[in-house]
């Protein structure tokens, strides 16, 4: 929905009439177009894909769509809010582990213990912190609320003290590293490097049955569409405008009387919740959650899809994430080494030379067609670019 790019944060003094309508209201035409877009996407996901794809490919698509959910969140935090978060794997993992713990306990039956604990551990009974996850009323909300709580904790500490930019990126990455080390180190209760594997049932449905796999796919596709709708509302709200303003001129927003830390915190927490939900749905789709899926490398791989698709657009992250994940499967099946080169090259070429992602190509093409349609040039206004160049941390 590149048609409704919000107005660039105006650098001139634009006298806003008091009590004016929200800036850049989505017009009727664009609303219609959005509805049509959603209908088209829904038709594609719910009717065409299940008909065309084999069960195996459909299961793969379900996996990609989970990655796409994480990407939507990164699009909000990074594309709209300027917070490059390299640790989304943590939130993905928290959601995934919460779900997997519940499913493992459900598989084991009441009073039972997950198989791996008997295998590794000298544990006689279930560890205390596993117990609440036996109840779906705890585990299901936890898949979303737990990541959001962690994000809230870290974010409120970090943003208030104005740790930002590269510093924030490094910290978020260190969080992913710490989480993985902790999971591997506590092998007896977390499954260690293997993670939680061999998940058989999903709330009473046998996951080996292709029909139930299909049901999981439909749940995932529906959730993704719902998240997209939510995101669209978010980025076109007043809050969405404020978020972009904070990205482009944090100090200026502060001087206008807003609190940039809270604005950023909301975006970060929302992104974490989306990643947690994605992790929770990933588990029944793939049947495993392990440290290798949530560490530093996968966390940064979530970002590449967003960069390829177009970080500040609504659909770009989704399409980019699905395309990159698909290319990865297609290529690494045949040439494992080549994919790594290609992935590296993708990072370099897209980020260095096409920072708007493929969506900016689309926008460029449209501009040529339509003529004087205002399209945001570059991803940072010139003033910010200059400011960043000379940025020296204040004493």
């Amino acid at each position: 929905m590149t048609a409704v790019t919000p107005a660039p944060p105006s650098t001139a003094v634009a006298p806003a009439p008091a009590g004016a309508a929200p800036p850049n209201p989505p017009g009727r035409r664009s609303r219609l177009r959005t509805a049509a877009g959603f209908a088209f996407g829904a038709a594609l996901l719910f009717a065409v894909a299940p008909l065309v794809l084999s069960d195996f490919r459909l299961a793969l698509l379900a996996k990609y769509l989970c990655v796409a959910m994480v990407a939507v969140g990164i699009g909000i935090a990074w594309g709209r809010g300027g917070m490059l978060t390299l640790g989304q794997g943590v939130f993905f993992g928290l959601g995934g582990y919460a779900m997997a713990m519940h499913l493992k306990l459900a598989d084991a039956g009441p009073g039972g213990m997950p198989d791996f604990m008997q295998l590794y551990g000298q544990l006689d009974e279930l560890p205390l912190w596993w117990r609440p996850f036996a109840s779906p009323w705890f585990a299901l909300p936890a898949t979303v609320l737990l990541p959001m709580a962690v994000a809230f904790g870290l974010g409120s500490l970090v943003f208030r003290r104005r740790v930002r930019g590269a510093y924030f990126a490094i910290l978020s990455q260190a969080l992913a590293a710490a989480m993985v080390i902790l999971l591997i180190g506590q092998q007896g209760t977390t499954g260690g490097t293997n993670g939680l594997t061999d998940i058989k049932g999903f709330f009473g449905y046998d996951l080996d049955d292709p029909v139930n796999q299909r049901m999981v796919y439909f749940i995932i596709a529906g959730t993704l569409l719902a998240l997209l709708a939510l995101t669209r509302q978010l980025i076109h709200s007043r809050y969405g405008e404020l978020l972009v303003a904070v990205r482009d001129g944090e100090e200026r927003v502060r001087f206008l009387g807003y609190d940039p830390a809270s604005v950023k915190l909301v975006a970060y927490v929302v992104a974490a919740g989306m990643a947690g939900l994605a992790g929770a749905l990933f588990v029944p789709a793939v049947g495993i959650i392990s440290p290798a899926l949530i560490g530093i490398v996968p966390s940064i791989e979530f970002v590449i899809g967003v960069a390829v698709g177009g970080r500040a657009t609504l659909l770009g992250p989704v399409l980019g994430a699905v395309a990159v994940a698909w290319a990865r499967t297609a290529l690494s099946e045949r040439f494992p080494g080549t994919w790594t080169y290609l992935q590296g090259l993708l990072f370099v070429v897209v980020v260095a030379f096409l920072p708007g992602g493929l969506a900016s190509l689309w926008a460029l093409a449209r501009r040529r067609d339509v003529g004087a349609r205002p399209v945001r040039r570059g991803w940072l206004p010139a003033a910010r670019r200059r400011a960043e160049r000379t940025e020296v941390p204040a004493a």
Partner: protein
Amino acid sequence: MTVLFGQLFTGISIGAVLLLIALGLALTFGQMNVINMAHGEFIMAGAYTTYVLQQSITGAGLSLVVALPVAFVVAGAMGVLLEVLLIRRLYARPLDTLLVTWGVSLMLQQLARDVFGSPNVQTRAPELLTGNVALPGGLTIANNRLFILALALAAVAALTLALRLTPLGRRIRAVVQNRDLAAVSGIATSRVDRTTFFLGSGLAGVAGVALTLLGPIGPTMGTNLIIDAFLVVVVGGIGQLKGSVMVAFALGVLQATGEYLTTLSVAKVIVFVAIVAFLQWRPQGLFTLRTRSLA
């Protein structure tokens, strides 16, 4: 008491490794505000340089001595190449630089895998460095740890002197403090940047040589080091070396103590929590460059 000193020395030697891998970063990150994720792969390049040299130079001691300058030049050259080809174009976009250099690091890792194979390789340590030094009080200190500590301190000393006394060092400091003012004073800032990048990346190569004494060399060794190194620089504060030096040793001791009291994995988490808590207190790091610029 012996335990205490033993732990203290373990901490210091962890700190020395941290210092070696972070020193180059402190220079490049401090100077150009550039996050070079491929720094870890420059360390790897230094380590593989040692491995390659040992194939032709059989004496382990001699090859180590030769490897130090060669690795410095190899890693430094890679750094300059990266600077000229990519980083130079991205100075205005530090976050994008991070992602781009991550892409470069992926490619370098795969290159190492294709050239040297994915299994780890091992180098031989010179005999002089395999033993222990026994101190009074029943304390023993591994020679290779001692060597790394000496190397780290020597590197810090050399770098400090170079920054303080040479004309190049003066130019580097000027650019760090105020790039625009340095430029109008007639300093060729882009040339200074390139030289800084050579020095910083070269130091990564030296760190790589030292790391061959501690463990195997593998294509992914850089990934595991880079975050620790960045944390040291972030907590130490950019623009000055002394912050990084102090923080490296402090984190090393914290890590060793945590490991002794709990486990390795819990210790890592303790260090992370400590860093976040520290940044609450000093968000710009331990030492900051005080300037009059508004930021």
